[in-house]
């Protein structure tokens, strides 16, 4: 370390910026199948290495290998591929709808489809996700109707949230999907509280907390880890590391920590790092953590390593802060293509079946979109009543809100 007379501030920078050649040489990718699978009741201390590696199942050829392979049946894997394809098709249609002015805003999942779609299959009815705005795969894979998602995005007269909430901030209690908030990180500690409640009531349900790489810097992330650790809450603490928080590269949130998963170790929480673009690996790791939580083994932290291939939102242009072709250079590839290759290799899928599935899914999404648009879009057709604006602030409307509703003439 050089000796200086004066101090200097270190401000991390990504390796490359627009115009530079993408460079992911810093990302160490272990061979698929090479990371061990500890018993589900292993002590956190005994598996520190897993916070610094990446659990992967599908190898370069598309084979499922190693101790984490085999958590799903063939039919479930095919279903998983369809879920990811559905989410991608849904994103494409809603992006277009936003460009057409049918809604004000949208956020896509491009490149991250495996994480929420595979994770949901490790949960049981009664479990509760506390998602961010980029886990709609939990809804798709959980069987929530696409048309209700679209109604929410359009804020139309069938919007389950009565037009009160920004697009994609869904809420679906019936499907174990907690109300998404615009305030980042807040739901992470709430998930822990929910899990504590299940334990207090001696229930059987577990919860799943979700956060992005950037929001791990929020204080509620820290609070969540303290509470989860202290009370051994039955919660799965997911971090989706997609490398980017809007324009800010993950190094700004990570600092000197080797990985985000490593943050769990300081709290005595077992931490797993998984290839987020490997559907089979995400499922196996999620299942491991869910089993552990259900057996009263306490929390697990999972860092899903992935790449945000799309823009942050419809209000964002990533070419202003990162190379345009960076997503193509991402070494973990594309989750849909990888699972497709795996199934094809095993003779369970083909190019033809894929094209056919794409066509079917597109038709399903378009049908849902037509049905949603019959209820209206943001600026056209049916919309929630202005009376709905005053409801549900409280269980019972207090006098001052009744007066204001009257003033509003609704």
């Amino acid at each position: 370390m050089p000796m200086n007379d004066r101090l200097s501030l270190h401000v991390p920078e990504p390796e490359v910026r627009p115009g530079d050649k993408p460079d992911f040489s810093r990302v160490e990718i272990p061979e698929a199948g090479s990371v061990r699978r500890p018993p589900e009741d292993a002590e956190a201390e005994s598996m520190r290495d897993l916070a610094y590696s990446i659990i992967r199942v599908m190898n370069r050829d598309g084979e499922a290998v190693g101790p984490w392979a085999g958590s799903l049946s063939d039919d479930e894997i095919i279903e998983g591929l369809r879920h990811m394809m559905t989410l991608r098709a849904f994103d494409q249609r809603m992006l277009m709808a936003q460009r057409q002015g049918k809604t004000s805003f949208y956020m896509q999942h491009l490149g991250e489809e495996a994480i929420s779609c595979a994770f949901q299959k490790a949960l049981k009815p009664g479990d509760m996700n506390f998602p961010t705005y980029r886990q709609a795969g939990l809804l798709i894979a959980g069987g929530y109707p696409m048309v209700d998602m679209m109604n929410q995005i359009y804020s139309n007269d069938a919007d389950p949230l009565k037009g009160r909430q920004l697009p994609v901030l869904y809420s679906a209690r019936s499907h174990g999907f907690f109300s998404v908030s615009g305030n980042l990180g807040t739901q992470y500690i709430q998930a822990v509280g929910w899990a504590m409640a299940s334990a207090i009531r001696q229930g059987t349900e577990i919860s799943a907390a979700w956060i992005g790489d950037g929001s791990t810097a929020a204080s509620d992330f820290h609070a969540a880890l303290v509470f989860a650790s202290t009370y051994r809450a039955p919660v799965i603490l997911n971090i989706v590391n997609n490398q980017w928080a809007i324009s800010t590269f993950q190094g700004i949130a990570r600092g000197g920590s080797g990985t985000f998963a490593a943050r769990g170790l300081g709290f005595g929480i077992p931490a797993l790092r998984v290839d987020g673009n490997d559907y089979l690996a995400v499922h196996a790791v999620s299942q491991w953590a869910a089993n552990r939580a259900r057996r009263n083994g306490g929390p697990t932290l999972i860092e899903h390593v992935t790449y945000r291939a799309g823009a942050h939102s419809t209000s964002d242009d990533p070419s202003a802060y990162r190379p345009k072709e960076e997503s193509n250079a991402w070494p973990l590839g594309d989750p849909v293509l990888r699972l497709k290759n795996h199934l094809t290799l095993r003779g369970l899928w083909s190019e033809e079946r894929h094209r056919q599935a794409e066509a079917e899914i597109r038709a399903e999404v378009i049908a849902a979109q037509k049905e949603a648009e019959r209820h209206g879009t943001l600026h056209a057709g049916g919309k929630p009543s202005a009376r709905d604006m005053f409801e549900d602030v409280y269980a019972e409307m207090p006098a001052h809100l009744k007066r204001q509703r009257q003033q509003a003439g609704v």
Partner: protein
Amino acid sequence: MPRMTMIEAIRSAMDVSMERDDRVVVFGEDVGYFGGVFRCTQGLQQKYGRTRCFDAPISESGIVGAAIGMAAYGLKPCVEIQFADYMYPAYDQLTQEAARMRYRSNHQFTCPMVVRMPTGGGIFGGQTHSQSPEALFTHVCGLKVVVPSTPYDAKGLLIASIEDPDPVIFLEPKRLYNGPFDGHHDRPVTPWAGHPAADVPEGHFVVPLGEAATVREGSAVTIVTYGTMVHVAAAAAEETGIDAEIIDLRTLLPLDLEAITRSVRKTGRCMVLHEATLTSGFGGELAALVQEHCFYNLEGPVVRVAGWDTPYPHAQEWDYFPGPARVGQALKDMMEA
């Protein structure tokens, strides 16, 4: 009927609620084994066990955030922030999450939660053990805000708050924990024993939220106040001989506007009184409401008596605290105006 201090009344409210409803859980810093730094939760852990009443890490956003998750699950958490001065790290959770849960989820998720916080000055608490942050909550739609001034009300209001389906900020004037305080800091402390409102039923009862109490009937001027200032107002009225009607709001949000307007229409004069700093304090809202609803009944401007617009000082405690002399002088000025 048993006599209780405000501390005992608050403890009794939690005891009664935990006994009646096993979904009620109590936690916070030092709340479990030790029974709270103000003894408000003493004995609850022994009686109900560690999973119903327990100690929490020193993380206000953690305490409130976890409670929100528990409420979403179906519990009824009654959590403690050790001093209202330390609620700020939880402000995001309270204002953006608890307050809006029902609204933003179209009542799929609700937040039946109580957050207790000792509030107010008069105890040489300095800058961070004396604050009255109620206006930071009354500005937040979706919250309810309660401030008791007697043991009887403290118990009845706390039980009502725990049973309420909405999130309630329950501000406990710590100066009133052991006895009523009228601002005469130079006199010996009076205990609650002997005060009529210290007779508190042992079992279950509620004081409904949203209902003010007229604690002194009068004809000359209405004093709208809450918490410790209720007792200061009473002393000022006695000492000046001005026949003030004193309204103890008890619940600041939702507000019993009817009780205020009824009184001001009768007296024609109104003082709003609180410990919290003046500018943008809750008194501003009260004054505005009184002039909107009672303009033609008013014989003079609505007067606000409040803490100065400074951080709460230590050595200058009694120059800061709006005591009976300052309130009395303001009353006299109003009557002469």
